């Protein structure tokens, strides 16, 4: 601030450089996605145009109609939703029980259980891939959304337990003591007293877990063959011939699966930042 009076030139040079940096960062963060959005509204024949003419080329919705006419993409949306919602619902239920126990109760071996949960959350998925595959085929759950849903618990449960525990610890104890004095059982206390207070935490954690489950690729690729989820459908999206990648429809499909996530993230942005920093587990 003093610089503005003592050396205005230097001050304005600094300001200009700073805003140049801001613009560079914004372009870096948004341009790849913006370009994908643009491509999803362009005809396949326009893809060869130079960037500026490409940007000004006529807009078309063909790619979107084509994507929604694609049966495997529609099925993918359905299966992705079922699997992700199911895995998140189970994790939130189990996770809030566990978080209540870990955040509020004193018992032997608590530290040990916390370490186990942290260890599982950094588990390389590949370490369980073979074992899970034999289990899933044994129970005839191959290509069944239920099998995929259960396998997703390996990353959704540790994450929800870890983040919810840190939230539960911060809830003032008086609420729960009052309930105990009135003779409420632990489950009554959890559902009637703590759940309303935990609501923002549950929404945030659920959303983050949902994003992870929605984006998961390795298990979805391995445990499903015809009932694919959207990441697998998008990765395998093919055109008329093997050498002709249909970039327009691929981008349209990508935008369709990404827009809900971005919308949710923007609506809940404050909660998400606090959830991420409380958990600091996964990206």
């Amino acid at each position, binding site marked *: 601030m003093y610089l503005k009076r003592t050396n205005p030139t230097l001050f304005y040079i600094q300001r200009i450089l*700073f*805003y140049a940096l*801001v613009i560079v*960062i914004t372009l870096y*963060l948004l341009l*790849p*996605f913006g*370009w994908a959005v643009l*491509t999803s509204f362009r005809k396949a024949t326009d893809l*060869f145009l*130079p*960037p500026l003419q490409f940007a000004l080329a006529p807009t078309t919705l063909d790619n979107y109609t084509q994507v929604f006419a694609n049966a495997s993409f529609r099925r993918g949306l359905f299966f992705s939703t079922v699997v992700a919602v199911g895995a998140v619902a189970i994790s939130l*239920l*189990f*996770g809030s029980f*566990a978080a209540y*126990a*870990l955040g509020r*109760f004193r*018992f032997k071996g608590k530290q040990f*259980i916390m370490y186990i949960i*942290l260890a*599982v959350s*950094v*588990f*390389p*998925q*590949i*370490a*369980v*891939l*073979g074992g*899970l*595959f034999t*289990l899933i085929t044994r129970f005839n759950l191959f290509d069944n959304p239920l099998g995929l849903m*259960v396998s997703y618990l390996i990353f959704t*449960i540790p994450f929800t*337990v870890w983040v919810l525990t840190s939230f539960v610890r911060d809830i003032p104890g008086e609420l729960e003591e009052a309930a105990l004095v009135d003779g409420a059982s632990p489950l009554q206390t959890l559902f009637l007293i703590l759940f309303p207070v935990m609501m923002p935490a549950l929404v945030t954690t659920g959303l983050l877990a949902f994003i992870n489950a*929605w*984006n998961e*690729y*390795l298990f979805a*690729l*391995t445990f499903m063959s015809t009932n694919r989820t959207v*990441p*697998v459908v998008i*990765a395998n999206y093919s055109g008329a011939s093997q050498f002709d990648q249909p970039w327009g429809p*691929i981008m349209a499909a*990508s935008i369709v*699966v*990404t827009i809900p*996530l*971005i919308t949710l*993230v923007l609506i809940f*942005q404050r909660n998400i*930042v606090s959830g*991420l*920093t409380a958990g*600091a587990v*996964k990206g």
Partner: protein
Amino acid sequence: MTANAPTQPPTAPPVARKKVRGIEGARAWQAFWLLLPTLIAIVLVAGFPLYRTIFFSVQEANLTTPGQATFIGFQNFWFTTAEGIGLGFMQDPQWWTAVRNTLTFTVFSVALETVFGMIIALVVNSAFPGRAFLRTAMLVPWAIPTVVSAQMWAYMYNDSFGLIGQGLLGGQALLADSSTAIWAMIAVDVWKTTSFMALLILAGLQSLPGDMYEAADMDGATKWTQFWRMTLPLLRPALLVALVFRSLDALRVFDIMYVMLGANVAASTSMTGYARQQLIDNQLLGTGSAVSVAIFIIIMAIVVIYVTAFRVKFD
């Protein structure tokens, strides 16, 4: 009785203590029941499958008939036939290529993400009009599914009409050449996760006391000195936790390579890609499990190194 009296505790306190233990015992049981669903789920999807993987790593087994496994010791890891042919995966040069590429990928992408994340966090942390917008824009790459960002970048790398492949490099096929492909992968990962890093660093920055900087300003310390002497040391704990989690994530990279390079090239670019090819495509349950165990050990070893070398605390 009287002789024993001093060693015997008075009668009243044990009753009281027993009662306390009764309540605590009941609480412990309640905690146990509350934890039970989570523990069962973890045993079912993590513990037992991990045990199966370790079990199969010392067996000769096929994915379609896991029941017919036979014990062969460590031959999945290292075994030379009478003709001198190496059958263990550790004798396969492709595995070591995958390890080298994964380590290169991890070191460079995590380092670049940290530097870029720090720059973005410092910019967003300073007051200027448009700050709220930039803060929101930060969340976009992070919210995009990895497979989608892989496809987006594959399109940009395309040598006949990609923004980078055709526009910047004039038709160079980045992904076709293994020496440039790994850098193309790093660029995708850096783009996707820098904002996550920036978010964590930003949260750390905002917890630093502002009056400390006012004092430093009074004392005439430059912004540059303030950053190296105050900001960085204070951010160390937050930065280290972020580094550990990002490194672990980068070490198990799979999606980007598999989508952008295909199953075969991914097997020599990512450790997970190699393991999956052995396990699923080649149906070698034994060898694939052995590779998985090796990856598990590598990752756990790196966790231990990080935690002991930097005394990282998770809480």
